[in-house]
């Protein structure tokens, strides 16, 4: 039996409730669904000593949570790099002149100095999009794109992963796959392996562009150990194939007895290298395996984050990484987080300091310090706080130091004592702001 509603249901109900509760007119309700977007932004300053690399970067990650635990994430990172990086040549007791990668001019390094190439003023833009979607109660899936562009490099990638919960959600097993196609368009072109560095204007030692494909697989297990402790174990497999060489790096061609770099005279009227240099060459294939374990442990309000990673690959590099962080809250709204990281790696199988004139050329050779034998320490502290509006800010400052050594078997003649691993000292400063809209 319908009756015409002279007043709306809400109005009648409001009046009836007022009579029931007898407490006067209530304050009107203000209730709305939570902020839709979470933003995580960061400004980074990275600087190495001795005129080496400086990097300024801005990062932003925007996340939107939908009903049913679906999540859309979008990330943008913009980096500006300036400064110089070791070009791979050894020091000499005389000045050395090199042709720039573009092939259009030269630069000179003073006697006794570590040769650095400061060609790299580059801006890199990286974008990523990720979609996370649960399937039923226990399964979760995600898929995404990533891309980045620098002056001479383009990266395009896709990734997908899937996970399932077990044991009342105490155990999660996950698997992920990422595929990437990266292409190099180096200034001047990619050099022919072991080609000599030539005079300005002579590009016969360079060919066109090249690319590499990367396949990454990650398998992981996350386990809740107790109310205060969580553990994760991951196995990763990575296979890169294609152009893995650094097109801007080379080795000095040295005399087999003295270890000094052979000198050279540019063609009449031309500018060019003062010594003999040969562009490096790395294998076109690299397979890496990593084992990674991490724990988060809650002790009396503080959280310890400890992780260990072991990596081994078919370039014969093994590395160990230990990372420790302790989040120490104080007051209601802030925390201090000291951080310590230890890293060590041994050199690649084809790591060399120089090439010997007259000796048989090895299949592969690179003097890139990043393939060398070194230890690194990061030490820093982060301070974070909650703002009045409920947002979060933090600032962290860290120092990063690499100290390496060159296996004595790789040093010849005058190189011994003069040639040392290019130790690195850098500072990292980051400011973060997290807010919701």
């Amino acid at each position, binding site marked *: 039996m319908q009756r015409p509603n002279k007043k709306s249901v809400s109005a009648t109900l409001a009046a009836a409730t007022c009579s029931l509760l007898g407490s006067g007119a209530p304050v009107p309700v203000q209730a709305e669904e939570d902020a839709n977007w979470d933003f*995580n932004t960061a400004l980074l300053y990275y600087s190495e000593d001795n005129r080496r690399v400086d990097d300024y970067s801005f990062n932003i990650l925007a996340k939107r949570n939908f009903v049913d635990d679906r999540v859309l994430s979008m*990330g943008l990172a913009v980096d500006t790099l300036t400064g110089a990086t070791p070009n791979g040549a050894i020091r000499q007791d005389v000045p050395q002149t090199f042709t720039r990668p573009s092939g259009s001019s030269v630069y000179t390094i003073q006697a006794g100095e570590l040769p650095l190439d400061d060609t790299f003023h580059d801006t890199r833009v990286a974008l990523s999009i990720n979609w996370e979607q649960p399937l039923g109660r226990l399964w979760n899936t995600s898929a995404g794109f990533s891309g980045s562009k620098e002056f001479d490099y383009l990266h395009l990638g896709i*990734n997908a992963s899937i996970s399932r919960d077990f044991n009342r959600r105490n155990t999660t097993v996950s698997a992920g796959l990422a595929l990437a196609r990266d292409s190099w368009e180096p200034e001047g072109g990619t050099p022919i392996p072991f080609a000599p560095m030539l005079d300005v204007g002579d590009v016969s030692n360079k060919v066109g562009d090249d690319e590499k494909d990367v396949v990454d697989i990650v398998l992981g297990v996350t386990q809740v150990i107790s*109310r205060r402790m969580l553990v994760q174990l991951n196995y990763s497999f990575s296979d890169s194939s294609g152009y893995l060489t650094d097109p801007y790096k080379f080795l000095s061609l040295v005399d087999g007895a003295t270890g000094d770099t052979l000198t050279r005279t540019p063609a009449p009227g031309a500018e060019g290298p003062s010594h003999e240099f040969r562009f490096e060459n790395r294998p076109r294939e690299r397979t890496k395996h990593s084992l990674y374990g991490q724990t*988060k442990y*809650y002790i009396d309000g503080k959280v310890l984050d400890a992780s260990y990673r072991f990596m081994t690959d078919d370039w014969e590099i093994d590395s160990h990484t230990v990372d420790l962080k302790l*989040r120490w809250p104080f007051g209601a709204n802030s925390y201090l987080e000291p951080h310590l990281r230890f890293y060590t790696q041994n050199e690649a199988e084809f790591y060399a300091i120089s090439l010997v004139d007259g000796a048989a050329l090895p299949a592969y050779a690179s003097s890139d310090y990043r393939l060398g034998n070194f230890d690194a320490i990061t030490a820093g502290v982060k301070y974070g706080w909650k703002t009045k509006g409920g947002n979060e800010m933090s600032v962290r400052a860290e120092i990063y130091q690499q100290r390496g050594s060159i296996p004595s078997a790789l040093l010849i003649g005058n190189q011994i004592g003069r040639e040392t691993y290019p130790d690195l000292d850098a500072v990292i400063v980051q400011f973060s702001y997290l807010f919701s809209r």
Partner: protein
Amino acid sequence: MNRVGLRCALALALAILTGACSSMGVEPWERDILAKDEMQLTTDPVEAGIDDHIYFSKEASSGGRGFGGGGCGCN
């Protein structure tokens, strides 16, 4: 550590985990601490991404926690 050794270590780790897994853990109402932001495995994904990128550019290893990182012409 060679390939065989690595495989053995991996198999052992997984066996220990899966064997112990079914009895370990907490009830849903005991997840209060685990639900805190600072107890998530990656507390700050942007900072983790920044660090991954720095170390990928300066060292020969990458990834571990997630994918291999990279996508940059700096190594």
